[in-house]
């Protein structure tokens, strides 16, 4: 451990070993898919997967930023839910507000994230507890407002989820763009590199002149922002605000982050690994659907993937 250069965590190796692992797994899944089903390996199917991966992609991107600074956000699902209900509810009453409400919803998500970060910094309470508390408050509020799917948006808004630019789905494109921008900022901007420094050691980062608290606030705000973007995608897909749609997203958002080689505890990992993790999960679920494997068995597989991924990365870290 003493020999690793902690100043430049992103440039230690030309290629992160965990990136190679996820890429290999991805290649294996694709190969199996080609072998088992002739409908799997079509452009059309891949584009569908890209379209469907967007919700998970946004949520995982937000989760990844929080994890990099050493936190965890268990309110992602609640923010997804709350933003769908907020957006569909307001737009239903005032259809003219559709476009402002896109920004309003994203801002709403960022504000919740900011509150999470603020509470964590001010109270010193573990992020797990704070975001769990926020999730409970948000879910309770949403369920007081409505118990069933509600509200509505203009029909054209489904273009965000279902629209295509040539063959490429718009939602997938937006997701790729978000990952590209975040990857670039993390790698080349001063603030982005500060994310890793704070995740490695907030105290050392502070002594190096980095305002750790500001970085933590930014990370949680971004987490909330991307959760709200995921919610926006769901509204576009379903046309309503659904008080339960986000429930599975909290835990789902963590799996690609782990697969991508980000370490809970912070300071390490490449955001591209998270993107590959999102594709891996989406392709596995797509392939299992083609193979008629029940959702219940898919849950078991998902749990085993988490254990498997964490175990190999932990062993790898020990060797280094």
């Amino acid at each position, binding site marked *: 451990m003493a020999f690793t250069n902690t100043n430049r965590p992103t440039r230690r190796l030309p290629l992160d070993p965990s990136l190679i692992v996820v890429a290999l797994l991805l290649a294996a899944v694709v190969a199996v898919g080609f072998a088992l089903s002739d409908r799997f390996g079509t452009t059309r199917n891949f584009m569908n997967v890209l379209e469907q991966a967007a919700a998970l992609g946004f949520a995982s991107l937000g989760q990844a930023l929080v994890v990099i600074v050493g936190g965890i956000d268990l309110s992602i699902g609640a923010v997804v839910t709350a933003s769908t209900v907020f957006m569909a509810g307001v737009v239903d009453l005032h259809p003219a507000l559709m476009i402002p409400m896109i920004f309003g919803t994203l801002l709403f998500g960022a504000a919740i994230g900011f509150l999470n970060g603020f509470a964590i910094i001010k109270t*010193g309470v573990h992020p797990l507890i704070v975001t769990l508390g926020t999730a*409970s408050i948000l879910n309770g509020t949403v369920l007081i407002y409505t118990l069933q799917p509600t509200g509505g948006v203009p029909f054209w808004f489904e273009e965000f989820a279902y629209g295509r630019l040539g063959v490429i789905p718009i939602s997938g494109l937006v997701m790729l763009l978000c990952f590209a921008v975040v990857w670039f900022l993390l790698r080349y901007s001063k603030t982005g590199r500060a994310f890793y420094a704070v995740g490695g050691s907030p105290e050392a980062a502070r002594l190096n002149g980095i305002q750790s608290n500001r970085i933590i606030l930014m990370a949680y705000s971004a987490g909330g922002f991307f959760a709200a973007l995921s919610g926006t995608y769901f509204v576009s897909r379903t046309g309503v605000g659904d008080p339960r749609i986000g429930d599975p997203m909290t835990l789902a958002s963590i799996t690609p982050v782990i697969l991508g080689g980000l370490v*809970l505890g912070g300071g390490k990992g490449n955001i591209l690994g998270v993107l590959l993790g999102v594709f891996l999960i989406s392709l596995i679920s797509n392939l299992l659907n083609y193979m008629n494997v029940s959702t219940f068995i898919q849950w078991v597989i998902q749990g085993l993937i988490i254990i498997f991924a964490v175990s190999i990365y932990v062993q790898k870290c020990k060797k280094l």
Partner: protein
Amino acid sequence: MSEVSAKATEKTTQQMALLRQFSVPIALVALVATATAVQPSFLSPNNIQDILTQTAPLALVVLGQAFVILVRGLDLSVASLMASVAVLATAFNATSNVMIPLIFASAILVSAVVGLINGLLVIKRNVSPFLATLAMMIVLQGIRFYYTQGAPSGSLPEGFRFLGAGRIAGIPVNVIAFTICFAGLAWLLHKSSFGRKIYITGGNPASADLVGIRSDRVTITCYVICSVMAGIAGLFLMGFVGTVDNWVGRGYELDAIVACVIGGIALTGGRGTLWGAAAGALILVLIFNIVIIMGLPVQAQMIIKGIIIIFAAALFAKAIQA
């Protein structure tokens, strides 16, 4: 640091320490007073029995969760395990009460294996407790749903209803069961040498190893205790609810953690008592009850729970920092 501010800090430290020490009894008294003010019949023997019956299953889970948190862990799989054990009980398709001990034995055995796997993943594979138990939660859920295909069937002996909701001489049966478990575990944690090993391991696993404590074994045992308690709680809750679905105990994993935090078990490990944890469970159930008797919507429970967990954790976090 100047002398004045040092004195001021010392004073706040003392105040915080006092507050921390007495927060649980103060909260209990305040809640009972509030409830009685809103609904004078709150203190009627019947209502007290009802509240204790509701508390017992959660409190059983909380006892186990406390052990895991004391060794710096966390168990998110308890609720999933409760439901799985309930489904397992229906699998016997038993109608005679004679089968109850066998059902209990198999439930405890399965729970112990689950706890062992959790513990081994955390200790031997270095998986963070959060992820290991999360994965276990999903795996159990998948197996359970695959077995039931979404709709559990089968029958249960009548006796479970008595265990979950019956009374002996006015005392709820599940409260008696809780008392027995509490007495045993409290002795283990607070009186036995193994209990001291738990606190030392939770305080600092590395230094525990240096003084000759097998901290890995201690930690794994705590995970097994937690799962076994969750399994027992699952059977009692099943008896209380009277039916089995795939979600028996849903939400109990978080409620159990909340109760521990309210009761002063530090998530950083090595601090807190079993008394506090049990009181935390009672506080939580009292709050849920007050929400109902005040005529607020049930969903308000979630909001209040969220606010309380952040504030309770903040109270103890500040105390520890100071």
